[in-house]
C-alpha cells in the first residue's frame, strides 16, 4: 500500500496548499469618519464593480459625501445582478432590474433605526425603459422597439400599498402618426403639474435600423392625464430634435412650474447623426401645453452638445456635455453650470478633465436640499478610483470628497430613518 498512499497524500497536499492560498482577504470596514451632525439620515450610494463577468451591483451607505472612504469589498447589499436602476421616492429606495424583456424582481429598501438598509418587499415588475415618481406612485413604461408590435405598456405602482394598482397600453405607431410607420419611443417621464409629460423620439423599429429615424429634426411630447393616463395632446416643435435621449430625462420643472426641455440633437439614420438642429433648451410655461418662444442654443454657448442634465434650483442646471456628435448613446464628460433664466453657461472648475473621466453618474446624481450643491460620482481612468465630487452651483467649482472603492458609482441618494 505504500505507493498508493503516497499518491493519495500528494493529492491531499496539493489541495491543501491551494485551499490555503485562496483564503479570503480581510473584511474591510466601511470608511467615513462617523461624523453625523444632527441627523440619522444616510446617503445611499450604489456601485458596480468594474469587471465584465458575473457583475452584481452593491448598495452602500455613508454618513457624508465630502470625505472618507467606503468599499464594496466585503461590504454592501448585493443585488441580483447588474443593470439595476434606482429611484428614491417617499423615503424608500427602489432597486429595479433591467432584464431585457424578462420580468424580474424589484426590491424596495428603507433605512431602519440602526442606520441599516432593510428590505421592505420584493415585487415582480416588467423590464421598463422609463420610470419616474408621480404623486405617491412610480409610473413605469415598457416600450416596444419593434414596429410589428408597436405597443407601450404603462404600470402604476403605489408606494403606499407597494403593489401595482393599474396598467394600460399605448399604441406608439398611432401616437407617432408618421407616414412611414415609425413608432414613438418615450425617452422619459416627467410630472408637470397634475399631468404626465412623456417626450418621445420616433424610431423605425425595423430593418436593421431600430433606433434610426427619418424625422431627425422635431421634438414631440405626449401629454397624459393622471392617473387615467389618457392622451390629452401632443406638443410639437421644429426648433430642436427630440427631447431627452434613450433612457435619459430631457424635461425638468423648475420652482415656478415651468418645464425646461433639453434636446441633444443627436437623432440618427442608419447609425449616422442626421439631426440638423443644435442641442438646445426650449420651454413650456406652467399650465400650457405648447412651447413658448424661449430658446437657448447650447452648442452656440458652449461649443458642445448636452447629453444629460441635473436640476439644482433657481433656474440653474448642471449640464453634462460632449464635444463630438458620433453616437446617440455617448455620455459627455464636460460639466457646465447652465443658468437657464439668464441664458448663460459657466464651466465647472476643480473637476478632472474629460480624458481623465471614465464614467460618471448623470440623472442619479444627488442635489442638496437647498439646491446649492450637486454631488456627482466620477470614476477616474487608469484605476485612479471613484469619488464623489461636490459641485458648488453658484461658484461653479468642484472638490473631491468620498472615495468609493471597488466600483463605478451608479447612483447617489439619501434616506431618512423610517418611522
Amino acid at each position: 500500500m505504500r505507493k498508493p498512499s503516497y499518491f493519495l497524500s500528494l493529492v491531499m497536499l496539493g489541495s491543501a496548499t491551494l485551499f490555503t492560498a485562496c483564503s479570503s482577504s480581510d473584511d474591510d470596514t466601511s470608511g467615513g469618519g462617523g461624523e453625523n451632525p444632527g441627523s440619522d439620515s444616510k446617503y445611499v450610494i450604489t456601485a458596480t464593480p468594474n469587471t465584465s463577468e458575473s457583475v452584481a451591483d452593491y448598495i452602500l451607505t455613508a454618513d457624508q459625501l465630502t470625505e472618507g472612504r467606503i468599499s464594496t469589498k466585503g461590504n454592501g447589499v448585493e443585488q441580483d445582478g447588474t443593470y439595476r436602476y434606482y429611484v428614491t421616492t417617499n423615503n424608500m429606495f427602489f432597486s429595479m432590474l433591467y432584464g431585457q424583456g424578462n420580468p424580474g424582481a424589484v426590491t424596495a429598501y428603507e433605512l431602519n433605526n440602526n442606520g441599516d438598509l432593510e428590505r421592505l418587499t420584493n415585487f415582480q415588475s416588467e423590464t421598463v425603459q422609463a420610470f419616474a415618481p408621480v404623486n405617491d406612485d412610480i409610473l413605469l413604461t415598457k416600450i416596444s422597439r419593434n414596429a410589428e408590435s408597436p405597443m407601450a405598456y404603462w404600470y402604476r405602482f403605489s408606494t403606499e400599498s407597494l403593489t401595482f394598482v393599474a396598467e394600460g397600453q399605448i399604441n406608439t405607431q398611432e401616437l407617432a402618426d408618421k407616414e412611414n410607420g415609425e413608432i414613438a419611443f418615450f425617452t422619459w417621464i416627467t410630472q408637470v403639474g397634475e399631468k404626465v409629460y412623456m417626450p418621445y423620439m420616433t424610431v423605425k423599429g425595423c430593418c436593421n435600423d431600430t433606433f434610426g429615424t427619418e424625422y431627425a429634426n422635431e421634438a414631440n411630447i405626449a401629454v397624459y392625464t393622471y392617473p387615467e393616463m389618457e392622451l390629452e395632446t401632443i406638443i410639437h416643435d421644429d426648433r430642436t430634435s427630440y427631447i431627452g435621449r434613450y433612457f435619459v430625462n430631457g424635461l425638468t420643472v423648475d420652482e415656478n412650474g415651468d418645464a425646461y426641455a433639453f434636446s441633444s440633437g443627436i437623432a440618427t439614420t442608419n447609425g449616422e447623426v442626421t439631426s440638423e438642429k443644435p442641442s438646445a433648451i426650449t420651454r413650456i410655461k406652467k399650465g400650457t401645453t405648447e412651447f413658448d418662444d424661449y430658446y437657448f442654443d447650447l452648442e452656440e454657448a458652449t461649443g458642445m452638445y448636452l447629453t444629460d442634465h441635473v436640476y439644482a434650483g433657481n433656474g440653474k442646471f448642471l449640464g453634462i456635455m460632449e464635444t463630438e456628435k458620433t453616437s446617440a448613446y455617448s455620455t459627455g464628460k464636460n460639466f457646465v453650470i447652465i443658468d437657464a433664466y439668464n441664458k448663460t453657461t459657466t464651466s465647472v472648475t476643480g473637476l478632472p478633465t474629460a480624458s481623465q473621466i471614465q464614467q460618471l453618474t448623470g440623472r442619479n446624481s444627488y442635489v442638496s436640499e437647498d439646491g446649492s450643491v450637486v454631488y456627482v460620482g466620477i470614476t477616474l481612468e487608469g484605476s485612479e478610483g471613484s469619488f464623489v465630487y461636490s459641485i458648488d452651483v453658484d461658484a461653479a467649482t468642484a472638490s473631491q470628497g468620498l472615495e468609493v472603492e471597488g466600483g463605478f458609482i451608479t447612483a447617489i441618494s439619501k434616506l431618512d430613518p423610517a418611522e
Partner: protein
Amino acid sequence: MQSVNKCVRLIWLILLVPLMAVSQSGNILVSGKIADASGNGVYGATIIVGKTTYGVVTDEEGAFELYLSEGDHHLNISYIGYKPHSEVVRVKQEGISGLRIVLEESTYALEEVVLSGKSIVQQVEEKAFNVSVVDAKKLHHTTLDLAHALDRVSGIRVRESGGVGSQMNFSINGFRGRQVRFFVDGIPMDNFGSSYQLNNIPINLAARIEVYKGVVPVGLGADALGGAVNIVTNTYDKSHVDASYSYGSFNTHRSMVNAVYVAKSGFIAQLNAYQNYSDNNYKMDVEVSDLETGEYYPTRTVRRFHDTYHNEMLIANIGVVNKPYADKLLFGVTVGSAYQEIQTGARVQSVFGAWHRKGNIIMPTLKYKKDDFITKGLDFRLNANFNLGQEKNIDTLNRRYNWLGQYKEYDTPGGERSYSLYYFRNNNGLASANWDYAINSKNKITLNNTFNTFDRKGRNRLATDSERYEQPQKTMKNIIGLGYQYESDNWNVSVFGKQYFQQNKFSTRIDVTGSESEYIKKTNTFNYSGYGIAGTYFITDNLQLKGSYEKSYRLPDNEELFGDIINLEGNINLKPEHSHNYNLGAAYWWRFLTNHQLNFSVNGFYRDANDFIYRRLNTNQAMQIMDNLGTVSNTGIEGEIRYQYRNTLMAGMNITYQHMLNKTRNDVYNDRIPNIPYLYGNADITYNFFDVGGENNTLSLGYNMLYVHDFYLFWPSLGGKDTKRGIPEQFSHDLNATYSFNNKVQFTLECRNLLDKNLYDNFSLQKPGRSFYAKIKYTFL
C-alpha cells in the same frame, strides 16, 4: 434514395426476424476467425472445446480450424486484454466455415495474466495528452445521455438549467462554452443545431468518449482553448441489432435502435435511430407572483407547466468496407428534429407559458478511410458534411404567466419575451482530411486540415419585407495542423503546430430614400499560429509520467459574430481567445493478491488565458453581445482512484480542485472567478452477481454520488457576507440495478436524486427531484 430505402427495409427485416440462427449442417470441420472490436484478427487466442483439454491457438490472421463431432459444443475463447468469451456452436454434417467471434476488450486483466494486454481505453489514456476516457459500453444499460455520462469524469462539470433537453453548460477544468470543442469520430460537431446536442444523445450511440483536457492532439483539427471531447461511436464488423426503450418520471420516454448489416461482399448499412420525450413537469419551490399587483406570495411547490422537450434523430449510413480502394466508404444522412418549450429565463422569476423553439437537421455526410493510401504507411481519412437544417424561434403570444400557469393576455401584437417568428438556416459545411504517415515503427507524421463554412439565411415572418434587409452573414474557417510523433519503448513525444485562419464577411444594406440601396461590405480576416508539445515516460511498467504544453487559440463562433437572432447581437470585430496550457500528470497501476487492482492518477494543470470572450449588454441594452474583455489564470489539480476486484466489484472516486483567478486589472483583480464550481467530485461503486437465476445471467447493482462544493454567483470578495447569493453545496445520489439475461436482454431500474434534495446548477433554477426510470435493452444479434 432507392438504395437507402432498400437498406432500411433490410434492417427492418433483421429487426423483425431476430435470432434466425446462423446454423448450418454437414461435416466436421469448423473454421473461422477471432477478431477484436475493430475487426482485426486476434493472434494467439486460445479456443478450448467445452470442459475438454482439446483446443487450438489462432494464427496471425486470427484464423482457426477445429474438428468436432456432430452436436452442440461450447467454445471457450480467451486472450489477455479481452473478456473471456463462451459461444455455443451447433455442429452438423456440413461443418462450419467463416465462424466469426468478436472478443470484447476488457479493462481488467484476466486472473492468470499480468497486466500487459491493453484495452483501447487504456491505450488512449496512456497517450502523452491529459486525457480521460469514458468506456461508454459499460453505461449502455443506463438511461444516461452523453452529457450526464461525462459529468462523472474528473475535471468535468455539466450544468443544466432544467430537465431533459434543457440548456446545458459544459466545462473542462473551468473552461466552458465554446472554449471546449466537441467531435463525433474526430469530426467537429460545430453547429449541428439544436436537435443534436450532447444532452439529447443517448449513451448507447457511443463506444467510448475521449476527453482531452487542455492540450488537444493535432488529429482533432480544432481551435479548442480548454480542451476537447471526442465521441467515438459504436462500430461493428458484423451484423448487429439492438434496441432499447426506457420510461420514467415526468413522462420521460427514450428509445433507440442500433442496426448494422455487413455483407460478405463488403457492403455495409448502418442505422441509428433514437428519440427522447419528456414533459419535464417536475416540482419547483418558488415564489408565485400576483399577475395584477406584482406581489409575491410565500414560497410554494408548483409543477413546471411549459417545459416539454422532444427530439427524434435518424443517422443512416450506407457504403462499403475492406475494398481495395477504401477500408471504409460511407455515404450517410443525419435527419432529425427537436421541439423545446421554454419555461424560464435566466431567473426563476421569468416564467413563460407559450414561447418555444423548433429545429431540424438534414445533414448529408461522407466518410472515407484508407490505410496505406498511395504508399505504404500513409493512412488517409476524409470526412465531410453539410447541415441544411432550420431553426425557428416562436414567441407570438402577448401574455404574462406566473408559476400557477395563470396568465393575462393583451390583444395587441407582442410576445412573452420578444415578439418573434424567425426562421433561419445556418448552412454549415465542413470538410476535414487527415493524413498519418508512419516513416517507420518509431516516427510518425500527422497532417490535418479542417475547413468550415457558414452562410446564414433567415427571415422574420412577422415583418412583411424583412428579406430586403437581410445582411449577408458568412464565415470561412480553416485550421491546418502538422504533428510529429516519436515513439520509443518507454517514452514517446509529439510536437505539433497549428495554423488558424478565419474570414468573416458581413455587409449592411443601406436604404436611402429616393436612391438605390447599397451594401457596405466588411471583411475581417484572422491568421494565427499555435504550437505545442506532449510527452510521456514510463518509469516502470506500472508508473507513467506525462506532461504537455500548448499555445492555443479559440476562434470566435458564428453565433458570437452574427448573433443568435434572439438574444445575442453579433460582434463582427471579436478577436480569438488564446491560452497557454500546461499539464503535468502521473498514473500508477497496482495489482496485488492476484485479483485486486488499484489505479491512481493525478494531474496538475495551469492555464493562462487572454482576450477571454465575455457577454455584456449592447449599447442600447436591448441585447447581449460578446466582447474580448478578460485575462484569466487557472491552476488546478485533479485526482482519481479506482479499485477493482475481479469482475465483481468496481469502485472509484475522483476529485477536482481549481483556482481560477481574474487577472484583468480591475476592481476584482486576483479574485476567484464566480459562478463556476471549483471543488467537485464523483464516487461510484458497482457490484456484479453472476449466474443469478441461471447461467450467464448477471445482476449488477450500482451507486453514483456527485458532489459540488458551494460557490458564489457573484465575485466572492464583494458585498456583505449575509447578502451574497450563491449555489449551495450539492450532494446527489443515484442508484441503479441491472439484470442481464443471457447477454441478450437487459432490464435496468434507476433512481436519480435518491434523497429528493433540491438541486441547482444555476442560481435559482431548480433541477428535478427524486425520479425513477426503467429501461429494457434487447440485443437481437
